């Protein structure tokens, strides 16, 4: 296996690590050496041939260095209407001097927090890209929300990417929240050039008790963009974690989202929308682990696929033996607009408790021709009628974005896409 591993360009990355966290990096390296990149038929990457893709996509395995970012560049990159604080990442590396100071929070480069237990939530043995990031990321950000702090304004992670020869970017984020806290984090990525870029991102979220966190991510990058992201959170009691992921463009995207419910009366909500055209490939793997009684999860992922695009959805729900009175709901709906578009959807429920309510469903279909005719028969042009119907389908996910300016921004992007020829 290890000799095979060496053939993958990406494997060389683990020999170019950043500073600090020596033992965490070393253990991640060991795991990477043992497991290597996902093989072609590896169950977790069955429909997303990421190894093959990266081999043909990357010209080397060098990590991009931070490039110089002007204040004007930051201002012009932030999405229109945003009202909040911005944390700037240059090629994935946190830039304190360009970022807003947020009084209520304690924020620093992760390298300055030697005892930050990286890899204790997004464990390197669970996903090889976590291992890769942990072994070799350059520098990330550490965010701590003190007890009883309710952030009024959202925090924007602004990822500015401009790569040249070195094409790999590995952001690393640790968020920990105190008890009775609340915050909203938004992810926006801006590609400043068209060079092939591979982003391998890891976000770990350690929740306190009665913590309410919202995470919104927009993926609207060029066709030369590959991303694998892992976000994992541990939730203690009386808490909520809301995630909305909007994927509109990119070459290949894999989102791994895991919510571990470790305390009662907590709730994990996962929403996703993927609108794909060309040859875009977006794979959402979600995982919610109910380990204690009285918790809830809600999940709705919706996709519209045109041209030769491919959507993948895999939703795991674990309900452990102790997790009585769990409510877990999952739904994945897809519309295929072309004969060549593909969707692979797989609900995966493992239920060990006997007093639970769980449901799941997935549908894949075409645009409702009868509804289309109805709208046309009222004088609405075909293109616009299609847009109305598709927007009605997609809107259900957008509704879950709790930050109004971001919702408005995403809604506009989606409307523009759906009102055009897609």
């Amino acid at each position, binding site marked *: 296996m290890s000799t095979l591993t060496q053939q993958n360009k990406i494997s060389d990355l683990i020999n170019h690590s950043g500073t600090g966290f020596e033992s965490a990096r070393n253990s991640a390296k060991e795991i990477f050496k043992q497991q290597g990149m996902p093989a072609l038929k590896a169950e977790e990457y069955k429909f997303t041939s990421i190894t093959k893709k990266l081999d043909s996509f990357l010209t080397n395995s060098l990590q991009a260095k931070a490039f110089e970012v002007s204040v004007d560049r930051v201002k012009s990159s932030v999405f229109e209407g945003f009202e909040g604080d911005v944390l700037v990442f240059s090629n994935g590396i946190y830039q304190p001097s360009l970022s807003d100071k947020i009084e209520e929070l304690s924020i620093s480069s992760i390298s300055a927090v030697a005892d930050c237990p990286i890899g204790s939530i997004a464990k390197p043995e669970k996903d090889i890209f976590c291992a890769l990031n942990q072994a070799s990321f350059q520098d990330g950000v550490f965010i701590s929300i003190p007890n009883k702090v309710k952030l009024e304004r959202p925090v924007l992670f602004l990822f500015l990417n401009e790569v040249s020869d070195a094409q790999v970017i590995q952001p690393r984020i640790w968020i920990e929240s105190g008890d009775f806290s609340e915050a909203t984090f938004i992810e926006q990525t801006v590609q400043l050039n068209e060079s092939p870029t591979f982003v391998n991102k890891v976000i770990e979220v350690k929740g306190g008790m009665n913590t309410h966190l919202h995470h919104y991510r927009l993926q609207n990058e060029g066709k030369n963009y590959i991303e694998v992201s892992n976000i994992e959170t541990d939730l203690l009691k009386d808490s909520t974690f809301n995630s909305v992921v909007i994927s509109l463009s990119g070459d290949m995207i894999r989102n791994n989202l895991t919510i571990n419910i470790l305390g009662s009366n907590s709730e994990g909500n996962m929403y996703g929308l993927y609108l794909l055209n060309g040859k875009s490939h977006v794979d959402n793997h979600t995982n919610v682990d109910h380990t204690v009684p009285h918790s809830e999860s809600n999940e709705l992922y919706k996709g519209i696929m045109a041209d030769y695009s491919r959507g993948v959805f895999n939703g795991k729900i674990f309900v452990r033996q102790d997790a009585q009175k769990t409510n877990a709901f999952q739904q994945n709906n897809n519309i295929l607009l072309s004969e060549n578009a593909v969707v692979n959807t797989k609900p995966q429920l493992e239920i060990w408790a006997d007093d639970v309510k769980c449901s799941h469903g997935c549908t894949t279909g075409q645009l409702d021709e009868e509804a289309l005719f*109805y709208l046309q028969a009222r004088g609405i042009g075909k293109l616009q009628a299609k847009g109305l119907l598709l927007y009605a389908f997609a809107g259900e996910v957008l509704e879950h974005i709790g930050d109004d300016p971001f919702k408005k921004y995403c809604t506009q992007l989606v409307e523009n896409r759906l009102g055009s020829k897609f």
Partner: protein
Amino acid sequence: MLSIKNLHASIEGTPILRGINLEVKAGEVHAIMGPNGSGKSTLASVLAGREEYEVTEGEVIFNGKNLLEYSPEVRAREGIFLAFQYPVEIPGVSSTNFLRTAVNQVREYRGLEALDAVKFLTLMKEKMKLVEIDKKLLSRSLNEGFSGGEKKRNEIFQMAMLDPKLSILDETDSGLDIDALKIVSNGVNQLKTKDNATILVTHYQRLLDYIIPDYVHVLYKGRIVKSGSKELALELEDRGYDWIKEAVDSEATV
């Protein structure tokens, strides 16, 4: 206004309409009756431009224009309105948004200015009275969770909003109780002018007590086999369709 000549149409290769001839002038109300499966709804669908049907022969001239060349939306903008037998529920599309889009696209085609929000709401309020439709219904998604009667009322409300020249009501009476039927008929009657026309497609005579037709046509096996005045409808109510079927079928065998 409308001139249908020798219209043949089929679906998936099966002929349904086999030579329809019909002239409708402004100000007239025509009822098209007939037993189930005679092609009544097909005729309505073909006129509105439903794509599943293939017109194999004949022509349809609407106000001097070859209707069959137009897409469904252009027919609507030209002034054709089809009240659906089964109005479609469209979750996520708000009734008001939908109507405003439709009204303004139709107006634009007719060279009229788009209605702003205020003017649109004023128009809506005026037309809502006509079919006694509750504004709560219109704040919901289009037809979603509406009762059968509410859906039909919504069809007539849309008709009022779009101000068509030729309205085709496809079995609008089916599934309505007598009160709803009165409200719907009343709406249709109020919208009637000397410049527009109505085609009522119906299986039963009941509707024709409330909307009085100028002509009644009986459709059978894809052809209009008998035409007459409103008395024909009463005769059909008394005697059913069998005598007509027999007459036609025996003619065919001779």
